[in-house]
């Protein structure tokens, strides 16, 4: 008995054209992904090649460990150590300030906040992430530095402390958002399991929720740290830029200069081709190596944490240490010692002893508290942290809005600047910013989505994929000032674009590329595998599956990533500082090779270069915040809509 079906359908043969098309499309995505790697390789090579003469002429050790940076002295000194120390001090300070506040806020938002509060606070904090760094710098320069000078009765408020506080505030939103995601994604069963055993909410949070979320929280902290290390504009505006190593090292009121600040402040003035010029590339190389080290260290820690959490792989020593109750005490003791040291260098012996004693008392008191008292105390601290975060946000926004509003007028929004921006408007800057962003997105979106499709859909885990992924990670960790430096030397000078819109667009496009790749890849991965299998099982080709089944539900996620990139590109100053921006322009640019005005650059120049323009400076800051804020508001709304619909990821 032979069935007829065998005769009816011959076995499928090789297919011709559609296969060719599939291969072409696959190659296209691979090419997109390779662009990221090439870009990174290129930037790295550029920095190293341009930095080499400095290392060769001065000596590697002299550059890395020299304790004096004084390029115009006779003889000039090019020691990067004080700059690196400055960067590390400011970053460390920012973390000490930001980590407790943001983790506490994340715990509050994830575990304690009533839904209504959460829905209000969370977008507000994400909005804080959208405030461009130059606005923070401006605020820091006008308000924070002055406040520090008066309240600590020091000669100048431009200091490690100012930089740390400002950077801390700037990293708050990143750490809060990512930690909160990690905390919220701890399965409810864990909490229920703990509560069902009679644990208090605080015990559950401390012993179950936070440990489970630890990898995510760690990632958040490292992400914030990366941001802090790479930040240029705000730091440059408030740290005083004196290339000294504070003495003692805990003197938080000493001015310092960071690696990024050095690039931002000196790149524009240095004679191109001089030893000083090459030394700046050496600085950029060191900066990139530090960020790279942080990122690599981070992924190593995360791998271990993840491995120990899932029980796979060798048990992590770190997690073991963190899990040990006695070691848990080490952190607060260390914090108390550190606080005492800082108090000592700022205020002398007495405050130092007082701080240390207070810390010890607190530590001694904690174990004596009953469960309920402990919970109350812990929650009180959480509430205080949240209140502090909200207050910081409110102060910054109120200051800028209240002083910026009077500047806003029809003429301000539609006119050209006059009298060095003290009078007239900022219309060309608004248009310029829009053009820069549009160009950057038009470049980065297709490339980024293509690369993400390659990584998420066509990946074969091999050496190339790993290379691409590290390329994206590295590009993501590259400080924006390094993009600016690269853009200036490569696009502006080498390719002879000149200071032009095009150079700025390409530089910004490179900068936002990793954001788009990551968010798109994330969105693609959230599409259930079942949908892909369902489509493939119907005989759809891979590309048909991706295009018709995977991309549509991932679209909101991709859109979110795109909008975030728009916000970031609109607010960045460092990459356009030397590549695209002009201070003043009466007519709009008429070709891609014309320079443009841009809001963040305009704000930077007004704030630092033009005395007596405070009202227009506040006005520009407000317009910039409104623009970026609007972009973020759209993102948040889009996501909320999709979350509410229980629909596609975003």
């Amino acid at each position: 008995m032979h069935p007829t079906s065998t005769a009816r359908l011959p076995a499928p043969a090789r297919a011709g054209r559609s296969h060719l098309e599939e291969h072409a499309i696959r190659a296209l995505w691979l090419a997109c992904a390779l662009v990221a790697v090439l870009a990174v390789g290129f930037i790295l090579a550029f920095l190293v090649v341009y930095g080499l003469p400095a290392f060769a002429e001065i000596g590697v050790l002299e550059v890395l460990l020299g304790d004096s940076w004084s390029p115009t002295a006779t003889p000039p000194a090019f020691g990067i150590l004080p700059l690196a120390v400055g960067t590390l001090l400011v970053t460390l300070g920012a973390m000490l300030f930001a980590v407790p506040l943001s983790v506490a806020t994340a715990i509050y938002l994830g575990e304690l906040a009533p839904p209504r509060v959460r829905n209000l606070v969370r977008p507000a904090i994400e909005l804080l992430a959208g405030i461009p760094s130059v606005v923070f710098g401006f605020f820091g320069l006008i308000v924070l530095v002055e406040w520090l000078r008066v309240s600590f009765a020091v000669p100048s408020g431009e200091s490690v402390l100012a930089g740390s506080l400002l950077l801390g505030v700037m990293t708050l939103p990143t750490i809060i958002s990512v930690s909160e995601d990690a905390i919220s994604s701890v399965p409810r069963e864990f909490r229920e399991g703990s509560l069902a055993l009679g644990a208090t909410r605080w015990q559950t949070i401390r012993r179950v929720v936070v440990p489970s979320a630890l990898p995510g929280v760690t990632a958040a902290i490292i992400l914030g740290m990366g941001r802090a290390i790479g930040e240029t504009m705000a730091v440059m505006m408030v740290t005083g830029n004196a290339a000294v190593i504070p003495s003692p090292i805990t003197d938080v009121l000493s001015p310092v200069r960071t690696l990024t600040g050095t690039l931002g402040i000196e790149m524009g003035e240095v004679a191109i081709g001089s030893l000083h010029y090459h030394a700046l590339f050496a600085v950029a190389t060191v900066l990139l190596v530090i960020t790279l080290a942080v990122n690599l260290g981070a992924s190593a820690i995360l791998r271990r944490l993840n491995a120990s959490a899932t029980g796979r792989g060798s048990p992590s020593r770190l997690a073991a240490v963190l899990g040990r109750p006695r070691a848990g005490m080490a952190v607060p003791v260390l914090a108390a010692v550190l606080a005492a040291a800082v108090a000592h260098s700022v205020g002398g012996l007495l405050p130092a002893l007082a701080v240390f004693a207070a810390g010890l008392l607190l530590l001694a008191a904690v174990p004596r508290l009953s469960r309920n008292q402990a919970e109350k105390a812990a929650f009180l601290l959480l509430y205080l942290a949240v209140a502090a975060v909200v207050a910081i946000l409110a102060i910054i926004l109120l200051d800028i809005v209240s002083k910026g509003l009077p500047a806003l007028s029809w003429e301000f929004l539609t006119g050209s600047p006059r009298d060095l921006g003290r009078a007239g408007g900022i219309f060309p800057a608004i248009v310029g910013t829009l053009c820069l962003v549009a160009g950057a997105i038009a470049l980065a979106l297709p490339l980024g989505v293509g690369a993400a499709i390659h990584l998420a859909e066509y990946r074969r885990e091999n050496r190339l994929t790993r290379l691409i992924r590290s390329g994206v990670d590295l590009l993501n960790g590259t400080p924006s000032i390094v993009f600016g430096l690269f853009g200036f030397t490569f696009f502006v000078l080498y390719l002879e674009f000149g200071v032009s819109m095009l150079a700025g667009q390409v530089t910004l496009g490179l900068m936002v590329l990793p954001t788009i790749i990551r968010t798109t890849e994330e969105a693609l991965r959230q599409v259930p595998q079942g949908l892909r299998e369902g489509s493939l099982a119907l005989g759809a080709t891979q590309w048909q599956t991706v295009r018709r089944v995977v991309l549509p539900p991932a679209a909101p996620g991709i859109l979110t990533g795109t909008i975030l990139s728009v916000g970031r590109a609109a607010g960045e100053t460092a990459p356009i500082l030397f590549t695209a921006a002009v201070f003043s322009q009466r007519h709009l640019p008429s070709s891609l090779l014309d320079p443009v005005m841009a809001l963040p650059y305009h704000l930077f120049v007004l704030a630092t270069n033009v005395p007596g323009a405070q009202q227009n400076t506040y006005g520009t800051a407000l317009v910039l915040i409104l623009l970026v804020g609007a972009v973020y508001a759209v993102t948040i709304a889009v996501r909320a809509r999709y979350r509410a619909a229980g629909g596609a990821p975003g």
Partner: protein
Amino acid sequence: MTGTPAPGTIIETRGLDLWYGPCQALKEITILIPANRVTALIGPSGCGKSTLLRCFNRMNDLVPDCRVAGLALYHGADINAPGYDVVELRKRVGMVFQKPNPFPKSIYENVAYGPRIHGERDRATLDAVVERSLRSAALWDEVEDRLQEPALGLSGGQQQRLCIARTLAVEPDVILMDEPCSALDPIATAKIENLIDDLKKRYTVIIVTHNMQQAARVSEFTGFMYLGELVEYGETLQVFERPAERLTENYITGRFG
């Protein structure tokens, strides 16, 4: 130990081995699947029955680190041969998954998806295919007046029948079913089982199930798998009433599983 069932063979494996990384999930599987019959694969969790099923349309390609050795033939052609058109294979060998996985599109678009990707553009033809497929899947009467509504609004049983309709719309000659009822309630299960009974007139059906009663009810041939091996394979009646292997008997009588 594996017999050749009477009717013409449509799918066949010879000494098929499969590894997930270092773990061997299938060992020396040799099986002949008869055309236009319902064949059931049973066995405890992790025995490899779903893995074997996914070999028939090369769905395991999607699993990283998955390696296959030995022969798997469809209409006598080696489907793992280089250059073999896997897309065409999957078009002919359809699959229904354990968890209903309708696309986040309308009911109509879910069914029309297959014909569309295979180049059908004519609206009238598509309409006809959609109606015919939904009728064959016994879903038409329930969704006739809401074809444009999202498929995710359907109940689990309806979603699964929609997935079957979606599969039928590309006119396969084999339908692989991977525990299609495990996520469904008894009433929805009964509907799917009735459907399978209809389908076997026109299609070859291979169903993986952990539910022995279901295998007994719907299938004509049954293979029992254990730890990656095909322990026993034969006519359903024989396997359930006079198992040749002690292991099969123990499983069927509920001594383990």
